[in-house]
């Protein structure tokens, strides 16, 4: 199973999909692309969750967990 956590006003919003199921994967991909268009950045997280690795720019159905964070600005 893949999981996407999008940082949001509620803490984070989770979207899960089974990469073997085309429809679920398509919905997750659409959401991923929508957030990237909004300026969010995506990070792939390894299974242990403790070490974050690699920015990704494309949706990877088998990436495991993906964290999407909103854009940052200087204050």
């Amino acid at each position, binding site marked *: 199973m893949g999981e996407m956590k999008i940082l949001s006003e509620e803490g984070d919003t989770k979207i899960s999909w089974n990469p073997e199921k085309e429809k679920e994967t398509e919905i997750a991909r659409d959401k991923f692309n929508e957030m990237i268009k909004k300026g969010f950045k995506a990070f792939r997280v390894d299974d242990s*969750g403790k070490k974050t690795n690699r920015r990704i720019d494309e949706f990877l159905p088998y990436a495991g967990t993906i*964290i999407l964070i909103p854009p940052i*600005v*200087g204050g």
Partner: protein
Amino acid sequence: MAPGSYYSNETYYTTQTVTGSATTAYTNCTFDFATSASTSSVTYWTTGTVYDSKFIYACDTDIVYSEPSWVKNMYNGRKFHHPEYGDVVIYVSDDATEEEIQEHLEHRYSEIRYQREIKKLTDMAEIKAQDLLKDFIGENELKIYNETGRLYVKGEKGEYIVRKGGTIQKIEGKNVIDFCVHLKDRSKYPPTDNVIALKLLLEEEESNVLKLANRRGSSSFDSIDELPLAACM
């Protein structure tokens, strides 16, 4: 909601509508403070949460309620006790009828209920954000984060302290350099979401973060009590 502001011992609430960008409006707000003897106006530089156009700012002040000063100048304050909401002061004319007083009180109680609901929602969001942070740093480091309000992050080149609610401090020898950088519209997000985002970005794209950040000054490492603890993680 009627204009006015009030506090709990944890959170400052105001019904004033906030507009503008996070860096201009939300960080420099002037609020009326009501004390038993006087009223004063204080300008705060702070972060906070805007919910339903209302600014919520965490503070430790134990002041209960503040009406706009024109109301307080016109009427005497009358204190009432409610078993659930505690002491509530309302400002009404001396010849107000019992019905008018009750109406005023009911209005105040509904404000308190509304603000409590907002606080519950923002607290829940922060809990979720901290759960996610715990996935990255583990329970022990999360405990230190909650004690100090700071998270140690090792970037590609430098070392940083990310402060709860955003902004970073770069450790350089015995000094820390303050940088202001945070999520766009950060007031919409729970404070720990800012920390998660900055942690991920500093680990992966340190130079981009520093390009966006505005340098705010520097101070001695030793002058900030919580830093050594957070930096030991």
